């Protein structure tokens, strides 16, 4: 586009770690994906609050503006509906915008334009929406009710949208690239608790890879019980699975959904047909959570194979409280998953 000036000499260090064979965090993996896509395709540009000079509240786009210019990394007014709607307009003109919502909790003012305009554009004959709406989600950081939300269920019910929620750096980079290249609007959730988690740091393939949307991943093979989960809960589930293996000799398979919409029904059904027992684990609140849809898909696709009811472990049905003890109580813990697995194992 007009004023973008790409100077290969000054690529910021923190987006070239993979080229240098260094391990990256989930946050750095996302930064690399965004940076590489902007270099690869000049129709990709970004809008959001404080993403330019400041590099974003979590520094995901640090130094992007000085590298790509202020026309490709645009600091917006505080107007989630305004700039998300504007991004939709840009899609019509052949651009591929990526908008950052500073905290995904603040996507709510854009609920109208996302569900009514963006999700319906193709169906109404107005054309595709190659748009990515990304930002930090999730609890455990003492952020209180408005800096801790998971937003998938605000949009999961809207046909036309895709929803992505990575659990590790490798997936995050590949999924972000796939999302940017997808011609449909994608809501991309990045868990604050995973952003810089040191234990997730890994060396990524130094190549232009994508992780296809709509395909789940087997995080861990197992034969007795299936856990269907995503995001932060993949890791709590692994802890629980290892504990079950060690203490109870129960073998737990973990399906990491990666993409929530469209849901990889086949991967879920296949695992359940193998184990006959399933626990759905999500960090989000219970009633109306995604576990319902997953359970229903299992009823439809694998009922005959069930040896026990599909059950779920989730956050409690309340806003996200601020105080540590309250928030920890609000969130699903490893002990909850273990309790759920034990109940299913004994069923």
């Amino acid at each position, binding site marked *: *586009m*007009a*004023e973008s000036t790409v100077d290969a000499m000054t690529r910021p260090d923190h987006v070239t770690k993979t080229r240098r064979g260094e391990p990256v965090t989930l946050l750095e993996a996302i930064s690399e994906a965004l940076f590489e896509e902007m270099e690869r395709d000049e129709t990709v*540009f970004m809008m959001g609050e404080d993403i330019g000079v400041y590099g974003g509240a979590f520094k995901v786009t640090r130094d992007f503006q000085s590298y790509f210019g202020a*026309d*490709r990394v*645009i600091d*917006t*007014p505080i*107007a989630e*509906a*305004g*700039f*998300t*709607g*504007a*991004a*939709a*307009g*840009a*899609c*019509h*003109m*052949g*651009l591929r*915008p990526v908008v950052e919502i500073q905290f995904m909790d603040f996507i709510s*003012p854009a609920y*109208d*334009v996302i569900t*009514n*305009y963006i999700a*319906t*554009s*193709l*169906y*109404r*004959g*107005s*054309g*595709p929406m190659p748009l990515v709406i990304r930002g930090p989600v999730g609890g455990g950081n003492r952020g209180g009710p408005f800096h801790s939300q998971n937003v998938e269920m605000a949009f999961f019910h809207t*046909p*036309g949208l*895709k929803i992505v929620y990575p659990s590790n750096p490798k997936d995050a980079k590949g999924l972000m690239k796939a999302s940017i290249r997808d*011609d*449909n609007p994608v809501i991309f959730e990045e868990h604050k608790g995973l952003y810089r988690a040191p234990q997730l740091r890994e060396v990524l393939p130094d190549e232009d890879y994508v992780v296809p949307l709509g395909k789940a991943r087997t995080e861990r093979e197992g034969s007795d019980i299936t856990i269907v989960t995503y995001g932060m809960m993949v890791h709590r589930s692994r802890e629980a699975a290892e504990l079950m293996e060690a203490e109870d000799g129960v073998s737990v398979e973990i399906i990491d959904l990666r993409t929530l919409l*469209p849901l990889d*029904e*086949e991967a879920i059904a296949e695992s359940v047909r193998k184990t006959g027992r399933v626990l759905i684990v999500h960090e989000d609140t219970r009633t109306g959570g995604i576990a319902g849809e997953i359970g229903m898909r299992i009823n*439809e*696709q694998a009922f005959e194979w069930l040896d026990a009811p599909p059950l779920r472990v989730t956050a409690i049905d309340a806003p996200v409280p601020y105080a540590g003890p309250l928030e920890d109580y609000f969130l699903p813990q490893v002990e909850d998953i273990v309790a759920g697995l034990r109940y299913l194992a004994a069923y």
Partner: protein
Amino acid sequence: MSDGSATSSTLIAGLEGDQLLEIHDALVRARAAEERLEILFKQGHVGGGVYRSLGQEAGSVGSAYALRRRDDGTGDIIAQTIRETGAVFLMGGRPLDYFRQYLARGASPTGGREANVHWCDWDRGLVGPVSPLGTMVEIMAGITLSFRLKGEDRVGLVYYGDGASSTGAWHEGLNFAAVQKCPMVLMVEANGWAFSTPTARQTRVQSFTEKGPGYGIPAVSVDGTDVLAVYEATREAVESARNGGGVHLIEMRYYRRKGHAQHDPQDYVDPAELLEWEARDPIRRFRARLVEEGVATEEELDGRAREIHDRVAEAAEVAVEEPLPDPSAALDDVYTDAGAPLPWTRRSNPDPRNT
């Protein structure tokens, strides 16, 4: 009746006779199509709401006439409202498609999925609007931002009623566009009403130009029944926007002479006001003007009008004869790479399993 402002404006407008006649035809075409639509509605051909722009045709035609109109996707773009029949036709939208949309025909631009002027044509510069008011300011902000980013000297014109100005979307979109210096012109259709709500219960401003300074953008008010006045005001704003002048606001003052939609009896409206505005009918005004200025005779204009009415009637006939869409088309185009799945209960032998 002729008034100075108008006389001067023809000269200033500097339009040739055939251009003036083109404008005349556009005004007549808009009204003819809407009148024909009303007939189809009364005959039971229209499922959804039927909207009129009676008395607002000059605003619609005059503003769109100031645009760079193309059919290859390189021209200016408008975001039309249900009151912009005239602008839609001027941009290249066909009366046939207009009727198809209202009649939900399978051959309509939206395949029967959407209604009325809610259709998109990027070649001719028509955005596909949605109903939630205010949204299109946000969309047009992004369209015109793209013009600036790509270095294209195109302009976007977004129409909205007085009522839409109360929405957060209108505000967020307008402020964003103003800050980003987008080549966008916001046309405020100040027709006195939002459904049954008078403008005074919508806002405390006397004129929407008072909102301009709050966004740091120029704003002018124009007589929305004077097609040339609207044309000139829009041409100025559009040229300024095209040349880096950023966002402009134009208030078109006129009156919604019909109910909000067909079902609205307008019993909340003072009949005297209606008469008053009927006396300022934009088409009668412009006709008189053309005759006065010797651009055409009554007879010539009658002839053109008859011709237009006939063409519009033909288009309506064609649309009426066309079929409704194939039901299963409801499944298509939810995603670029997938439609909605066929309900399991509609399989030859119903089974929820994907087998």
